[in-house]
């Protein structure tokens, strides 16, 4: 602020300084606001054009029904009642919930393990390995799914060969029974590195003195990790659980790509696969829009729930 205001004798200043300071302060903050606006404008324009407008358009579209015979008519919430009572749609939902319930815990345990190893500095070349573990995240999901599709391919896939060698002859990872485990495997491969980097960063922020105190107390290493570090990175873990859950609900690319490689993917395998097939192959864009809105609402509920949960447990101000 102003040097004069600060250096002015306290006793003399208040009456004269207060209005002045107020005046300058508000002018300053108005100017600051405007400058800030310039910074957020590019984002807000993109956000408006590519998120808000399409969202509103999807809601608008979801209230109509377009038919080959009879054209487009306003149909109110009838698309929503179709979606809400669609067995296959909720079957797809159940599938991604199972997917998340298995994939997220396994991945987080592995990610926490690696993060701890890196954090403790017990591994040599830690930086190199951190980079290596992070690489799968940098591989586009389409490429990763294609690659795994070849690895799991039922006739010449090396992993299938391995399964045959170990006596599981006739294994087909892309058959309806093994497809979900196969995609869980792919997702774990893709996301563990990313999650472990976030956990590693969280572990790095655990105050040194706490750990040093524990060491001075002769606390065994496993206790430092499990009883001290793990509770202190709990906020990061909870955030990752919610982020990964939202990701799981939107599962699309892996099943879609594997379906070209022989995967037994049905049209309603996940909710987003269902939206895609309903809109593109069946040309029922309105119904697809209603499905997308329903999925969006479920994700909003999870996001708001996550905020409330984290606020209540004191992790957010």
């Amino acid at each position, binding site marked *: 602020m102003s040097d004069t205001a600060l250096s002015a004798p306290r006793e003399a200043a208040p009456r004269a300084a207060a209005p002045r300071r107020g005046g300058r302060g508000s002018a300053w903050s108005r100017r600051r606001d405007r400058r800030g606006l310039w910074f957020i404008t590019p984002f807000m324009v993109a956000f408006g054009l590519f998120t808000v407008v399409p969202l509103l358009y999807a809601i608008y579209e979801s209230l109509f029904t377009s038919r*080959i015979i009879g054209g487009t008519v306003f149909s109110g919430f009838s698309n929503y009642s179709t979606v809400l009572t669609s067995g296959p749609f909720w079957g797809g939902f159940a599938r991604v919930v199972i997917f998340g319930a298995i994939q997220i815990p396994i991945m987080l345990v592995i990610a926490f393990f690696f993060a701890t190893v890196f954090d403790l500095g017990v591994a040599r070349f830690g930086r190199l390995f951190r980079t290596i573990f992070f690489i799968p995240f940098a591989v586009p999901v389409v490429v990763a799914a294609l690659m795994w599709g070849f690895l799991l391919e039922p006739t010449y896939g090396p992993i299938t060969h391995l399964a045959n060698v170990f006596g599981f002859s006739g294994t087909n990872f892309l058959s309806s029974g093994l497809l979900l485990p196969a995609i869980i495997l792919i997702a774990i491969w893709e996301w563990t590195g990313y999650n472990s980097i976030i956990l590693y960063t969280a572990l790095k922020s655990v105050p040194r003195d706490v750990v040093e105190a524990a060491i001075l107390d002769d606390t065994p290493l496993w206790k430092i990790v499990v009883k001290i570090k793990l509770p202190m990175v709990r906020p990061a873990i909870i955030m990752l659980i919610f982020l990964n859950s939202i990701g799981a609900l939107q599962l699309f690319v892996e099943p879609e*790509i594997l379906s070209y490689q022989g995967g037994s993917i049905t049209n309603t395998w996940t909710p987003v696969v269902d939206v895609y097939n309903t809109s593109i192959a*069946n040309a029922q864009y309105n119904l697809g829009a209603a499905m997308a809105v329903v999925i969006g609402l479920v994700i909003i509920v999870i996001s708001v729930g996550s905020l409330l949960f984290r606020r209540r447990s004191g992790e957010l101000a």
Partner: protein
Amino acid sequence: MLSRSRLRGPRRATKRQVTGRVTAGLAGLSAVALLAACGGSSSGGGAAPASTKTGGSSASPSASVLAGGASCSSSATKITFWAWVPGMSRAVTAFNKSHPSICVTLENPGAGLNEYTPLSNALKAGSGAPDVAEIEFDELPSFEIQKQVVDLTKYGANKYQNDFVSWAWQEVSQGSAVYAMPSDAGPAGFYYNSKLMAQYHLTPPKTWAQFATEAATLHKANPKSYLANFSATDLQWLLTAMAQANAFPYTYSGGSKVGINWTGANQMKFASYWQNLISSHVISTVNDANNSPLPNQNLDNGVTASSPLNSAWAPSYFQPDAKKTAGDWRAATLPQWTAGASVSADWGGSTYPVFKQSAHPAQAAEFAEWLTGSPQAWTILKTSPSELFPTYKALLSDPSFKSLKYPVSGSSEPNQVFTAAASEIQPVQWPPFMTEALNQALTTFQPVLSGKETLQKAFQTFQSQEVSYAKAQGFTVSTGG
């Protein structure tokens, strides 16, 4: 290696390239698949460099001008043309040369749905559609019902009627109107590994009853071998088989009425015939409707002895995959449901309509007519990499076409069988919602392949799914039969 699949398209114009789930968004994937395909088959001839070029550039139509434009005179009438047949640019260049007042520009948005989706969007939007485009036989009614295609009789199409096999002409006609020019097709024949069949003293079956007996004989003699594979999820193929059995489930002749009958007597008889073979495990049930290379591998490594309802494009299509069995493959007339009959069916093929959005429908029609109904065009399109099998009678009766030899078929002349089959096809009436049906079939028929459900049960499920879709789309549905 690319197999007969949704992504096979860029290599063949004849069969459905892209069913259900493929869209322009996955152009990258098809490019990858194509690269793999071309890597594996450079000696096969099917995937010439041109197909890489056409397939790889699919997502944006405007980004892949392949012929025309620069070489035309500035006063020429400009026509835009979408197609995905490899080597099509050669025909366009020839047309532009012999028709200096018209300038056709070829763009390739990708096969099947990669083209249909942007095409439908442009037609709905009212601008941006091409003047002429490649549309498969089974998809043409979907465009007719949107009233987006021009009746070509206004532009002299009728004078070509007798140049084409009659079923093809009927499938592009609705009453007195002609909505597209027919081009290529895939008459079906019995395509078999002659060495393997001879080893077990089997001859190409004359009837489906004989086929069933031979299937049992072969599998008993060699439990690792099957006479045939039955892929119920591949709806285009299934409908070919059903058409030959006089069990085609759809009737449609324009307007708002459609017949859907998957559960009639003929359909159920067809289903129980194949289900018996499936249940007794004398034929295999490998999914052929996706990108798995397995079906072609099985043909080549002796697991599958025949492709009982394969198409006229089978020799050139299977050629790159035939490594161990090259030279052994022969074509024979299809097994018949009634002894002594000779009924065939069509699997795939394309038509060329002119769209109402066209500013120059007369010139566009002239191009479509030249492309499908002139010896000049067929001289080009019959050769690699296009290798189209014609509905054009002059070429079908051409002795040099009939006697074409393919390395996969040794010294035999498979086109003798397929050109004869071309005139033994009964026309069918495609429903105006084939994309939905093809996509739904991928899911509904899957349990048949895994043995969890019978074909009869799947037909019943599919019947109710198709009826409810058609009703939701505003159609009056008749299910009689």
